[in-house]
């Protein structure tokens, strides 16, 4: 049974990914602070074999727990770097903390996890990074988020080129997806998105989750360092 390391497992995306994964997979998840939810998810879902609490914003917690996860799960074959945060603010008002927190969680930690795993997991074959189309066109009040996601897309290609074909790296860039993260987006931005989106609707979590299950599937061949955009046609 292929084992997956899924970061941000208790979030909405994480939840949707676990639900959509075929039964053959087993999941090692990470979560930041929702202990109760992590416990409940483990009780309710046989696919989850373990959950680790980790603070992506704290160096010592992050490095310690990631190393522990890798040491205790040497049979991980797939990594889904899904953990992400946003701290929106116009560039002129953005604090250094808002910048560095978002860059750390969304970009820097994902590169570390992948690099560390590549060095220590013999069975690793597939890495999927969750980016965003914000990185492709920029968005008001999201300089940190857009930069981090664009960096992650670039990092995916770099990692693929650096590590060769032994591991398949891909990146998925969702557009506006129905979630808590999007609920906090202003009505103006939502309307602008809908007006320019071929689908004329926001996407659903399961749309993205299903794409991820396709990308990690054995039937997905010959995609290396590819960016899969799932945005209802917004970028057209």
């Amino acid at each position, binding site marked *: 049974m292929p084992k997956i390391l899924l970061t941000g497992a208790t979030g909405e995306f994480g939840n949707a990914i676990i639900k959509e994964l075929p039964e053959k997979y087993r999941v090692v998840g990470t979560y930041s602070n929702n202990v109760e939810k992590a416990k409940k998810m483990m009780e309710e879902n046989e696919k989850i074999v373990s959950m680790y609490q980790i603070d992506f914003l704290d160096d010592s917690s992050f490095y310690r727990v990631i190393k522990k996860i890798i040491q205790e799960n040497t049979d991980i074959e797939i990594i889904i770097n899904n953990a992400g945060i946003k701290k929106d603010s116009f*560039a002129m008002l953005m604090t250094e903390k808002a910048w560095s927190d978002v860059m750390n969680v969304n970009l820097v930690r994902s590169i570390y996890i992948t690099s560390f795993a590549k060095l220590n997991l013999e069975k690793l074959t597939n890495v999927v990074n969750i980016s965003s189309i914000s990185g492709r066109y*920029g968005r008001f009040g999201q*300089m940190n988020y857009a930069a981090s996601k664009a960096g992650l897309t670039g990092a995916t290609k770099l990692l693929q080129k650096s590590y060769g074909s032994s591991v398949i790296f891909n990146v998925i860039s969702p557009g506006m997806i129905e979630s808590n993260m999007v609920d906090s987006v202003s009505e103006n931005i939502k309307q602008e998105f809908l007006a320019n989106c071929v689908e004329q609707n926001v996407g659903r979590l399961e749309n993205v989750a299903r794409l991820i299950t396709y990308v990690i599937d054995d039937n997905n061949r010959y995609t290396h360092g590819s960016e899969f955009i799932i945005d209802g046609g917004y970028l057209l």
Partner: protein
Amino acid sequence: MKKIYLANCNLKITNAIVDSNKYNVVSKDTINQGEVDLFLYQIPEYCESRLLLAAEEDYKNFTEVLNEIFIEVKKCVQKIIKQKKGTLILLVKNNKFLNCEDTNYIITEMANAMMLTITKELNPFNGKCYMIEFATINKENIGKLTSIAPKYNVISIDEQIQNMLSIMEVSSIVNGQKIKVGLPIEIVN
């Protein structure tokens, strides 16, 4: 003469700006004295292949570089918004996979997203932003170009800087774009 603020620009670029006799260069200390027309920020290069070796210290340095970029960009954006005019030009190097472990590609992609966001945020304040991308010229690059596509002429760094100066002259009509001033390394692929 237009006033220009140079941030982190290397000696060649700085000299070319000064020698053009078209700009008054504003220093860090005098940036707040009067209005500035152009802000030229050479984004620091980050080429650290050890990032892929997962050494914690290298990740700390990487984060510091990212923070440094943010601080400088924010300073320029604040000044442009305050004076309700000005153009921020981000200079980056495109080393795309010249070296298989070229981590600067991450920075280049990030800078592009920053440029797009800043363009949108500066627009209501009569501010502009664009990015100029240099192609790195080195032996490996030239070797690849001439072996795969001999008809292409490599554009030297000096020529690229001259291209940059030409673009800067028309800054009033450039906004939200990434402009390559050298031969794009992508054609090698």
